[in-house]
């Protein structure tokens, strides 16, 4: 047996600006074991949510993760709506799809850029981030903020999308799609991209399920599971099939996310075309009682909220299982057998969001 070396990957590492540590045991260049260590920046949001009033928590849960902020608020609001027995008006459900998919679009752009950056493809990184700026402007135009849009609230949405804003969204999406068309061949065929991702970190289908992987990681292993299929918000009324890839390697995860950017554009177009007129918010009264589970598909996968209310203004318990928390065990199983130089690419291939792991 050759000598073993232990290398701490993180919590400060050039490819991953977020604090997570992987203790890698190496045999020469090969990883034999990886132990994750999190908790460097745990913020105790679950506890803070018990101390705040439930109306205020919408703004708190948005800050679990900036990139998925709207979808956290959506998941929380849907849970509270179930507890209160309130239905949001139809227009609000469509508006939620628009903002939700804009978030998915900009999050996937961010990730696609970061992955390119992790194997040194700087120009591809800049292309994606330049594209992303157009989407950020759409968010600022419609919601008033670039990242934490705060448009979702219990009972509906807080802002409406006017006709001229909708046409501006459609015009910008055409531009974004045009740019993506130029980048799709790079992602799927380019020599650099393929040599760094194809066959790396293969996660077979049964293992992916057993390890509790979610979102694009699960779908890249051939499991057609997307929480949007249960039809929350207006997804049940829009045409949509989950993106699935069979290979289960880093390249499959890349393709799933690339194709989901097209899917997000398509869903926004559909939602804007079919958006009914009417109210955007239902007035809510009373306090949440009982308990429920709420699930939403975020860019990184399924997020699960457990909410328990006792009829007062404070929730009894709020538990949040974020997608990266579920994908870390899958990552830990992917790493053994790979080379040290591939670790950054594989870590990024699950789209780690440590800010949401450290609620």
């Amino acid at each position, binding site marked *: 047996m050759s000598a073993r070396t232990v290398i701490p990957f993180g919590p400060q590492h050039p490819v991953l600006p977020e604090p997570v540590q992987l203790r890698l045991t190496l045999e020469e260049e090969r990883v034999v074991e990886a*132990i994750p*260590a*999190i*908790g460097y920046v*745990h913020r*105790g949001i*679950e*506890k803070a949510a018990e101390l705040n009033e439930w*109306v205020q928590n919408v703004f708190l849960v948005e800050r679990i993760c900036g990139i998925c902020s709207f979808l956290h608020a959506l998941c929380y609001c849907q849970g509270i709506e*179930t*507890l*209160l*027995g*309130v*239905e949001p*008006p139809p227009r609000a459900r469509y508006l939620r799809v628009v903002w939700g998919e804009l978030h998915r679009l900009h999050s996937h752009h961010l990730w696609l850029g970061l992955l390119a950056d992790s194997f040194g493809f700087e120009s591809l990184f800049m292309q994606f981030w330049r594209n992303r700026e157009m989407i950020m402007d759409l968010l600022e135009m419609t919601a008033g903020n670039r990242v934490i849009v705060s448009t979702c*609230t219990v*009972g509906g949405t*807080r802002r409406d999308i006017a006709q001229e804003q909708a046409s501006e969204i459609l015009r910008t999406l055409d531009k974004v799609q045009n740019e993506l068309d130029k980048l799709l061949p790079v992602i799927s065929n380019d020599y650099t991209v393929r040599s760094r991702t194809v066959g790396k970190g293969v996660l077979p289908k*049964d293992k992916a*399920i*057993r*390890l*509790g992987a979610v979102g694009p990681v699960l779908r890249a292993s051939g499991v057609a*599971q997307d*929480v949007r*299929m*249960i039809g929350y918000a207006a997804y049940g009324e829009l045409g949509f099939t989950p993106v699935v890839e069979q290979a289960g390697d880093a390249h499959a995860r890349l393709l799933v996310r690339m194709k989901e950017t097209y899917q997000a554009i398509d869903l926004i177009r559909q939602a804007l075309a079919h958006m009914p007129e009417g*109210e*955007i*918010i*239902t*007035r*809510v*009264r*009373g*306090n949440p*009682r*009982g*308990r*429920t*589970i709420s*699930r939403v598909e975020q860019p990184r996968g*399924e997020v*699960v909220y*457990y909410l*328990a*209310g006792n*009829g*007062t*203004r404070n929730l*009894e*318990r709020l*538990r949040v*299982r974020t997608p990266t*928390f*579920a994908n*870390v*065990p899958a990552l830990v*199983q992917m790493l053994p057998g790979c080379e040290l130089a591939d670790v950054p690419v594989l870590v990024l291939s699950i789209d780690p969001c440590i800010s949401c792991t450290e609620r």
Partner: protein
Amino acid sequence: MTTGEQPTSALRPATIVPPAQAPARIENLERIPLADLLPRVRAMAAQGARLVTLTCVDMGGAFEVLYHFDLDLQLQHFSAQIPAGDKLPSITSEYLCAFLVENEIADLFGLQVEGLPVDYHNRLMLTEDSSDRPLLRER
């Protein structure tokens, strides 16, 4: 504090919906004795279910641990109750991925978990000098 005067958004108030009559419940929730836990979890694993997560709730003197499973987007939950001071059996023999969330519960609630393959000894979320159990209810 009355329940009726909840501050609501002043934006375009629409229809007023009366508060829900009965408290909401979780569907497909089954209460099981702790002894049945591992066999039931094994049965879920044999069906190919995905472990969504575990939720621990402090009930004062006891904990309720909820196990959430997903089978083709259908959720199935098991609820087991465990008195404070007892040890929770780990389900990592069936679902390895549970090691992270079981360690988290051990940290934040002080509930001891038995049979963890990777035990962080209450230092996954908490710092070396912390003796706090942040998610326990204050009484």
